[in-house]
């Protein structure tokens, strides 16, 4: 019995020692393992900083990659923790966490660089677009621009304003997107208007010749009327010099040569006053009827009709006058030349029937009209 007790004691000591050694070894093994806590925390903080630097916007690919790696490391950590404590291996998780941190840091850096560059680009692009909008306002605003072009210009200004607001709010990418849309509309409006103006001025040499001829004709002492459509000015020339000048208005389609009835265009060429009307003779206070269409207009009309460019039923039009009731501030006539009543009083007094009226698109060349602006 005494032996058994002694034996039991020894067995207990050996067993307890064994258990103690095993536990000690296990604790040593576990404590020697490098845990991923700090690395994952660092990765998360790096991701947070990257997000704060808007890396999800400016360095989207890298940021998303870092986030994916971090999330997969977290899943891996959880999976590893499910395993028996002694066989857990965190090395892969640590390496993923380090990778996620590095990519997040890169994303942050890239984001800062890109947003700074974008900010600079947006600012210089704003200046450039502002110039284009100014150009439109200076050159094209008063031209009879088609509605679609006008709408494009307005739309561009609206988008530009929205883009500026986005920039002020620090939303550079949104500002850039809005700006690019605005730029498309601006370019469309400016290019269309510029093309229209250039196309119109292809007749400039003809206009210049007509104007020179009219001025030369006035040198004999008689009065000659010269109308500049682009400048919206009617000049009275006498002895080769300007005697008077008046602001005038035309029809909404003034930037075209009249070729048919109802086109609301003002003809270009040499005409004469054939009738002066006042009192009950006109609804426009006072009027001076021109001999539109002249022989050239008729020939051109016939040619275009023959070519099918003008419908067979359409007439060439008539009743082109210089008349009163003007000064409305916009082009409102049906192709006539509208003047303020006080101006037509003056003109009515100064010129008589038979006076030559030369109407041209522009007396000045395109470069002068556009003040040398590059468009």
């Amino acid at each position, binding site marked *: 019995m005494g032996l058994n007790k002694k034996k039991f004691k020894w067995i*207990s000591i050996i067993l307890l020692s064994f258990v103690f050694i095993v536990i000690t070894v296990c*604790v040593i093994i*576990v404590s020697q393992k490098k*845990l991923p*806590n700090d690395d*994952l*925390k660092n990765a*998360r903080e790096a991701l*947070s900083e990257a*997000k*704060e630097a808007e890396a999800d916007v400016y360095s989207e690919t890298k940021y998303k990659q870092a986030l994916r790696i971090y999330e997969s490391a*977290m899943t891996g*950590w*959880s999976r*590893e*923790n499910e395993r028996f*404590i002694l066989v*857990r291996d*965190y090395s892969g998780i640590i390496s993923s966490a380090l990778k996620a941190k590095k990519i997040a840091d890169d994303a942050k850096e890239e984001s800062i660089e890109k947003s700074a560059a974008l900010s600079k680009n947006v600012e210089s692009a704003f200046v450039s677009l502002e110039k284009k909008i100014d150009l439109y*306002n200076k050159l094209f*605003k*008063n031209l009879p621009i088609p509605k679609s072009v*006008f*709408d494009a210009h*307005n*739309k561009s*200004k*609206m*988008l530009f*304003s*929205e883009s*500026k*607001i*986005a920039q002020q*709010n620090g939303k550079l990418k949104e500002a850039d997107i809005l700006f690019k849309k605005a730029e498309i509309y601006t370019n469309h409006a400016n290019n269309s208007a510029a093309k229209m103006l250039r196309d119109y001025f292809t007749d400039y040499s003809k206009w210049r010749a007509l104007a020179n001829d009219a001025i030369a004709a006035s040198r004999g002492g008689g009065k000659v009327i010269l109308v500049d459509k682009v400048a*919206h000015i009617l000049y009275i020339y006498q002895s080769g010099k300007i005697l008077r000048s008046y*602001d005038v*208005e035309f029809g909404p389609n003034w930037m075209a040569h009249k070729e048919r009835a109802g086109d609301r265009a003002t003809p270009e060429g040499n005409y004469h006053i054939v009738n002066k009307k006042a009192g009950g003779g006109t609804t426009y206070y006072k009027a001076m009827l021109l001999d539109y269409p002249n022989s050239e207009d008729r020939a051109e009309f016939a040619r275009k009709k023959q070519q099918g460019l003008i419908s067979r039923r359409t007439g060439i039009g008539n009743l082109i006058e210089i008349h009163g009731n003007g*000064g*409305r*501030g*916009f*082009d409102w006539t049906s192709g006539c030349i509208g003047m303020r009543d006080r101006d037509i009083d003056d003109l009515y007094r100064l010129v008589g029937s038979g006076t030559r009226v030369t109407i041209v698109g522009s007396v000045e060349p395109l470069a002068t009209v556009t003040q040398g602006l590059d468009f």
Partner: protein
Amino acid sequence: MKSKLVLAIVALGGVVLFSSCQKVPQAEIDAATAAIQEVKDAGADQYVPEVYQALVDSMKAANEKVEAAKQKWFPSYTKAKATLAYVSQAAVDAKAKTEARKVELKNETTQLIGEVKALVEENKGLLAKAPRGKEGREALEAIKSDLAVAETTVTEVETALANGDLLGSNSKIKAAKEKATSIKTELEEAIAKKGKK
């Protein structure tokens, strides 16, 4: 007697061991996750992005604390639970902030709509007084068109607001106000010039 003592020690050890092995606070994790989703659904990521991001970061930190506890011999989730409780509470605050921001934006946009409408009407009145000479001709048609754009924008903004696009409608109406204000300035300058002549 001795063997009974040994058994008692082993049993006590077992109780201590098992009481130290807490369970993963899954209910708290689920509650915090659901709270964040609710906040996101309310639009916090759009309306209060910084607050939302802080919440997401806190949730990540809580998950890390859960895993850090899990990897120990005797896991204790006390810290993780505290963070999860904070996340759940912060989510409630974030939702309140989101709703407040929405109301603020809606009120601001509604007020701006009123201001732009008033400016458009004012500009129409100024248009009637604007000079009609050559300078007027250059500007009037364009101004009318600009005004039409501002009016169209107001209609677009009202539709966007009704559809719940609070941010889009806000920036659009701000742009419209800028436009309407610039038109007003342009008209006032033209009228002032006319007065000087």
